[in-house]
């Protein structure tokens, strides 16, 4: 039984209006339409490569029949290629990426701490230099890097051309730069009174840095570490000229060469390699999404 509201009352209980498609569409419905188009646009290439990887022995043309066969054969083929040591590439990529990102975070945090907490001559010039240096990415000097490393390998073959240590050292040349700037901004948001309190309690600068500051800035360390890991994984130019032996190469170099040799005939194996290569990066991204978005708006480009 329904009691009609008295017309004079100011308590007006709205009755649920009947669903009107036109009104719904003009308010939010069209947004869902845009969303659906974008979902197809964004996700389709990824589904395509996933479906291609599940089609053993597939070529580029069989990849067009989406998900008409599901089998993990290509994944086992991938690890048994005679010429292409995929497992080694995978391990190298993880190793180089991890070491580079850990060292990058550490070197960047050291520099950001000194810029944020200390006042010294050349501080402003130093910050300015970091801004300027990041405009000139290392790959512009790729020829000089190659020749420098080949010069080093004449003297110390262990850290020269065709060594992963050499490549990591080159990557660390870019450790200061945009990362430090990102961290510098974050360090400034930690109140200096915390340091002072610790100093009064008798802590030295190193103890303040390692036991207090580093813990408080952990989110930005995660962002910088992840961006550096992703950047290293994606890096092709320098890795392709430094690493020559197939067993030492990274995924970017190895998969590119694999693809350029036999693109259309062995597509399902490449697709399987691509899916596995993308997994760790995408998982990290989706888990740390919140932090990354914060880092992005602070000025980093993938």
């Amino acid at each position, binding site marked *: 039984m329904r009691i009609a509201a008295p017309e004079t009352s100011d308590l007006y209980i709205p009755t649920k209006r009947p669903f009107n498609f036109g009104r719904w569409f003009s308010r939010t419905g069209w947004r869902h339409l845009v969303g659906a188009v974008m979902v197809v646009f964004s996700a389709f290439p990824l589904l395509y490569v996933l479906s291609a990887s599940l089609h053993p022995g597939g070529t580029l043309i069989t990849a067009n029949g989406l998900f008409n066969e599901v089998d993990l054969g290509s994944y086992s083929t991938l690890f048994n290629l005679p010429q292409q040591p995929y497992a080694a590439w995978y391990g190298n990529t993880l190793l180089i990426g991890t070491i580079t990102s850990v060292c990058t975070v550490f*070197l960047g945090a050291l520099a950001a701490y000194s810029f944020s907490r*200390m006042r010294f001559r050349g501080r402003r010039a130093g910050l300015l230099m970091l801004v300027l240096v990041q405009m000139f990415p290392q790959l512009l000097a790729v020829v000089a890097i190659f020749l420098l490393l080949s010069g080093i390998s004449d003297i110390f073959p262990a850290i020269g051309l065709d060594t992963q240590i050499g490549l990591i050292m080159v990557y660390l040349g870019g450790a200061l*730069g945009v990362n430090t700037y990102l961290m510098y901004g974050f360090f400034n948001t930690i109140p200096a009174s915390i340091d002072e309190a610790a100093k009064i309690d008798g802590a030295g600068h190193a103890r303040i840095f390692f036991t207090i500051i580093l813990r408080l800035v952990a989110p930005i360390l995660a962002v910088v570490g992840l961006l550096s890991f992703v950047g290293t994984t994606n890096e092709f130019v320098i890795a392709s000229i430094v690493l020559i032996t197939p067993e030492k190469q990274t995924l970017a170099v190895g998969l590119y060469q694999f693809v350029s040799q036999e693109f259309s005939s062995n597509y399902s194996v490449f697709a399987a390699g691509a899916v596995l290569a*993308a997994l760790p990066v995408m998982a990290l991204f989706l888990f740390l999404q919140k932090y990354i978005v914060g880092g992005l708006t602070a000025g980093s480009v993938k």
Partner: protein
Amino acid sequence: MTTPRTEQDAAQLRQTKRSRRASRVAEAASAGVKVLLVKIVLLGIVDAISVYALFVLVMKQDWVVVGLVAFVTLVVNWIYFSHQKLPAKYLAPGLIFLLIFQIFVIGYSGYIAFTNYGTGHNSTKADAVNALIVSSQERVPDSASYGLTVLEQSGEFSFLVTDPDGTISVGSATSPLRVVTDATTDATGKATGLAGYTSLRFADIVAQQQAIAALSVPVSDDPNDGSLRTPDGSSAYLYVSDLVYSAADGTMTNSSTGVVYADNGKTGSFVAPSGEELLPGWKVEVGFANFVHAFGSESIRGPLISVTLWTFAFALLSVLTTFGLGLFLAIVFNDLRMRGRNVYRVVMILPYAFPAFLSALVWAGMLNPQFGFVNQVLFGGADIPWLTNEWLAKFSIIFVNLWLGFPYMFLVCTGALQSIPTEIQEAATVDGARPWQVFRLIKLPLLLVSVAPLLISSFAFNFNNFNLIYMLTGGGPRDVTAGVNVGATDILISMVYKVAFVGASRDYGLASAFSIIIFLLVALVSIVSFKQTKALEELN
């Protein structure tokens, strides 16, 4: 004041002494023995490595590098053992890498741009002389047979030879023969082993056949004396070159034809009067020749200009398209009434999370003209040359970069839109502004203020977006009229890479000259953009 005169003074002095001691104790307590140990161990490792490095460098007589390494080691020790220099302690590790692998290499590029470094010109004149002589060596017809044992020491092969009159000597490709007396010999007097070296057995020789057959051990310091080579691994013969090098006037003479090849001092090679050039040559400074070559010769100037224009067009269009789509989506999905926004958001971030080099490779497969998904399924078997027609390839690159880049702009614009206070918007609505006016006159300007620096860094990133270009089209379709390996979709950085590292002939000098051009362009763009945004003024 050396002696306390009154009670009060004495008390004050005790006070300062005590406080000084207190601060010392505090510092010591905070630093601790462990920290000190770690510091000493780390510095010890650094010093040990550099002492080793110095040792090797002194052996190689590379005095400039010796000086540099010694200087850096001293500076590092000075910084870390000093009680002040606190900022330097924190900056030094990153700064050393930055100086070597970012700043120094830029300067080094500048130097290489003024040399003829590249295939055929990548070493010193002495190396080139040796290489030329070795490559034109022929066996002396009546050469005596030398008894040979092939030795190995840490991966390098040496020849232990017994010449016909019984003298035993040892030498390798890099060190000429020297007489030794302590070799072990067999019954016939042929030397079979030498302390410190491993003698190769027949099976080893077979396994290393190619390396041993290519080995050429000089008889003396003068390359004209010829060298020993072995066809079988058990006896060596004297090989002498057709070419005779005269150190006095620096010329190379072909002894069979009599042609004299002279070093003209410009090209870094021996050139005959007829213009014939002997390669390999060596590295020399060539002044502005690379730049003159880049701008002066029609076959390179044309491609260079079109590549530069396309680089700017590509970077600009990439920023505009990704920003346009990202902003549109940010507005569409920034409506609280809409359900399921998070689902859309996660799916739309996927292209950004997928590694970029793989995206380009996957799209290259989908856009393949004969077999790709786009032509076969979407266009029903059409034969559209997405990646091989000049303009369609350019379109494809912009399109794929839109796919790669719009999630970033979407995230950034969403963040910026949400940080605009809603009161401003409400006030405008109350004043009677329509939604479009609110957007154009209020939201967009506020948004641009916060997003502009990101747009500039996105431009700078795309300016050198090597991976996309190289993985998607490889820079193609190739421009066959160009004097260098360059195509319609090449940007400057991919052109540098192709000139320097792709194909049989590598020209590091020309590639570095192109890099210098990119440096200048990037510097120009950043000066202009920094002036616009005044980003540098925010530094404090």
